[in-house]
């Protein structure tokens, strides 16, 4: 089986349609994950013990089970209890909740990495709890989180092909559908790989930049 450039030219527009859906799902999923992660992190750090423990268990459960199965669950089981989500929405929610558990860890680590001396200095200068958070802790905790969060964004991007299992016509699904109707896997699959590789190489540079930009302020 030979590589066929003519075929490549022919399928490109369809693949680009798929890429757009992929990117849309990634962005929406990231937004959901950022919020869900914050909720998880806050519940785990400050909620009363039973709630915190339940949240901890939920987070562990979600992190310990495959996103694919979770997507099936959201898409095919939830309608039984009256929740019928459009495929893309179900996908975005699935991605968001799954990656929200990762974001929660990043938030927590970022906050815990602010040295104890900073909390103590805030106390010694008599700042209130709120002032300590807003003026001392968060401004130091957030910048180092950004590269880690961006890392998960990229990971999520690479997991969007899972949405094809719940009928979202993203890049992978378009490629499969092309492959299916033309009986050729080489070109569409390779192109999908190339798309992913290009996007990740771009994001590697973007990440490096982020890491430099938000490098830890190395003074205590």
């Amino acid at each position, binding site marked *: *089986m030979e590589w066929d450039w003519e075929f490549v030219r022919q399928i490109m527009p369809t693949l680009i349609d798929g890429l757009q859906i992929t990117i849309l799902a990634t962005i929406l999923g990231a937004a959901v994950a950022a919020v869900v992660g914050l909720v998880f992190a806050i519940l785990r750090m400050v909620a009363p013990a039973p709630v915190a423990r339940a949240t901890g268990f939920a987070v*562990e*459960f979600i*992190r*310990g*089970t*495959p*996103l*694919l*199965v*979770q997507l*099936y*669950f959201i898409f*095919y*089981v939830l309608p*039984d209890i009256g929740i019928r989500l459009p495929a893309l929405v179900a996908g975005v929610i699935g991605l968001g909740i799954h990656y929200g558990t990762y974001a929660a860890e990043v938030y927590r680590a970022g906050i815990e990495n602010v040295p104890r001396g900073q909390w103590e200095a805030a106390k010694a200068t008599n700042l209130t709890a709120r002032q300590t958070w807003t003026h001392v802790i968060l401004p130091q905790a957030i910048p180092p989180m950004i590269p880690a969060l961006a890392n998960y964004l990229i990971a999520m991007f*690479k*997991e969007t*092909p*899972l949405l094809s*299992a719940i009928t979202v016509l993203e890049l*992978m699904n378009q490629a499969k559908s092309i492959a299916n109707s033309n009986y050729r*896997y*080489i070109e569409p*699959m*390779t192109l*999908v*790989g190339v798309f*992913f*590789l290009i996007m*990740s*190489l771009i994001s*590697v540079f973007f990440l490096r930049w982020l890491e430099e930009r938000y490098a830890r302020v190395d003074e205590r």
Partner: protein
Amino acid sequence: MIDWSGYIGLILQGAWVTVELTLMGSALALVVAFAAGLGRLSRFMAVRSLATTYIEFFRGTSIFVQLFWAYFVLPFAGITLTPLQAGVLALGLNVGAYGAEVVRGAVKAIGREQREACIALNLTRYQAMRHIILPQALPLMLPTFGNNAIELLKGTAVVSLISLTDMTFQAQVVRAQTGSTLIPFATILVLYFVMAWVISLGMRWLERRAGRGLDGVRV
């Protein structure tokens, strides 16, 4: 009415495939993680670039693409793998690329000071790596390796897309035969979670063993 015991049997068969994939994939991942992670720290430019290319390529493309490649495209290059081999290969190389960065990070984290002490004691690079750096780096790697193994376990669900009869796939089969969606999926969710939980228990046990005597103190 529905032969549930038979279907549970089917899911358990799938669970075994999932376990096999996870174990073999992890073994492969471990080997390539060390090879590529240390390769990236090599003195030789060629080795470094090779390792870097491998890592960036496998981290950059999606596991799905890698699976489909291993399954549908490699045969045209004359390499025909069974679905299980293709699954192990793709999962192992994919997770191995992430593991390589863990190895590299841990080795580098055993700071300059330890490496300088090795030079001052006239150890060769190999001796320093073998006796000083790796024994200290290993405990640092373990927690992330544990996470990677769980990621790999979750990744096995994807092989159902290349019709490997893993747990997720068998759940689909059961669903098609019985018309019930909730029961097979709820069952495998619990099974996956139990497997992930076993992995983290095992890793914690290893960490305790490896960390013995170190007490988390860097000198």
